[in-house]
């Protein structure tokens, strides 16, 4: 079989899998969305306040923290995965929580990876909002809360880009969740695309295991599903960005 054939077969397989509403595919897609969605949500809730603090508060070590956030944008996923792994295994300091190889551990890993990304990009967007805008809010009687809301509206495009970058990264991420999640699916699905059910298997970790089995067509098919998912989210988001 030639290289291009794999691609071709993969595309056909992707359509088959999507349109047959294969329950196994649905369940791993569900885990992908649940894990990456939750991680991105939590990361956004951390990152945006953090970005505001870095933009507006003048505390000691602010510059160092900005450098740290930018460094965090390049945290190696496998390292983050390993770090959480040795923390969460029963022999580790947080072993008592019994969270290794669970979706929660995966959410934690992606949260750590994605938070700096959303923070760094939001920070750049927030810093680009002209100061007089904020002063106008204040002089018209707005509180710091209203100033934050106004900044948010003005930096909307950039902040949406930040969240999209974070979500995209989370959905595409594999190194960390493979280690802390274990790529586990229940019966029937270990050896192939069966009627199994995912526990900690996501689209990306499934791609990895299909690849290591040498089943490149299925990997490509899963990749196409993942990209379609991402594209739908982005078309939706673009609709909102365009209104800014």
């Amino acid at each position, binding site marked *: 079989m030639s290289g291009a054939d794999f691609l071709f077969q993969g595309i056909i397989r992707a359509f088959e899998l999507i349109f047959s509403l294969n329950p196994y595919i649905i369940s791993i897609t569900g885990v992908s969305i649940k894990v990456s969605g939750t991680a991105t949500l939590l990361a956004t809730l951390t990152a945006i306040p953090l970005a505001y603090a870095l933009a507006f508060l003048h505390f000691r070590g602010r510059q160092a923290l900005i450098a740290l956030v930018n460094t965090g944008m390049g945290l190696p996923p496998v390292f983050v995965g390993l770090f959480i792994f040795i923390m969460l295994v029963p022999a580790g300091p947080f072993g008592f929580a019994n969270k290794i190889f669970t979706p929660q551990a995966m959410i934690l890993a992606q949260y750590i990876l994605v938070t700096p990304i959303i923070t760094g990009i939001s920070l750049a967007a927030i810093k680009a909002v002209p100061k007089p805008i904020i002063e106008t809010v204040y002089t018209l009687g707005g509180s710091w809360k209203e100033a934050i809301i106004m900044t948010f509206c003005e930096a909307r495009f950039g902040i949406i880009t930040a969240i999209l970058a974070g979500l995209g990264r989370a959905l595409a991420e594999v190194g960390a969740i493979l280690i802390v999640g274990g790529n586990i699916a229940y019966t029937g699905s*270990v050896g192939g695309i069966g009627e199994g059910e995912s526990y900690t298997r996501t689209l990306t970790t499934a791609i990895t295991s299909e690849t290591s089995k040498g089943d490149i067509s299925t990997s490509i098919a899963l990749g196409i599903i993942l990209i379609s998912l991402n594209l739908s989210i982005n078309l939706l988001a673009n609709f909102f960005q365009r209104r800014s």
Partner: protein
Amino acid sequence: VQQAPAGNTTSPTSTASAPQDLRLATTTSTCDTGLLDVLNKKFEDENNVRILTVCEGTGKSIATGELGAADVVMVHAVQLELKAVANRSFINRSYMMYNYFVIIGPESDPAGIRNASNATDAFRRIAAKQSPFISRGDNSGTDIMEKSIWKAANITPAGTWYQSVGKGMGETITTADIKSGYTLSDRGTYLAMKDKIKLRLLFESDQKYLFNPYHVMAVNPAKFPNVKYDLAMKYINYVISPQGQDIIRNYGKDIFGEALFVPAAGIKEQ
């Protein structure tokens, strides 16, 4: 060499409706060949258990068990296993099956290993010709075996012909296929991939060097009180039971035309 202990710690079958979870850390070859699908399904159905299978290579599987993150491990690297048993991380190490490693390479066989007298001779010929050799380089059972063959052949492989890829078996075969190089593979993975590659099986059946035994062992509950030791033992006993061994004996015959593994419960190891 430790003798497989008899399983006499079986707990009464659970009657609860919610299935119990059992964590199994195992090497990629058992997953990727599809053996575990069949083997585990039966156990799950009969015992109201869900097996959480983490496929991650022998080295990592043993580390996972040593850290208490698995209940039971299924691996194939005798030295590493014995070391881990010696430090009391695992107990009840049981011999479950074996197969043979094979040396595969390009059909033209530039180093002429088809006529080699044994595995060390084959390796010597490859080194002499400096034909590309792809090494897994990942401390897996296969990798350790490869290293010991080089050692027995009294060769320290060096040079750009000898390339280490630090990957699983399937990917290593793919790499060797693209680079038209030789590599050492377990028989199962080779058979599973043989239709997709140009490499051919060139040398096999050296009882001394190409022997590939798999063991299953339980994480020591004395070290990690939270592991599901009883359930792990139930699983081990199932794998080495006639029922489990039968599944191993027949697995692959329909798909590959021949069995991938030979059941070995109760056999004394060399």
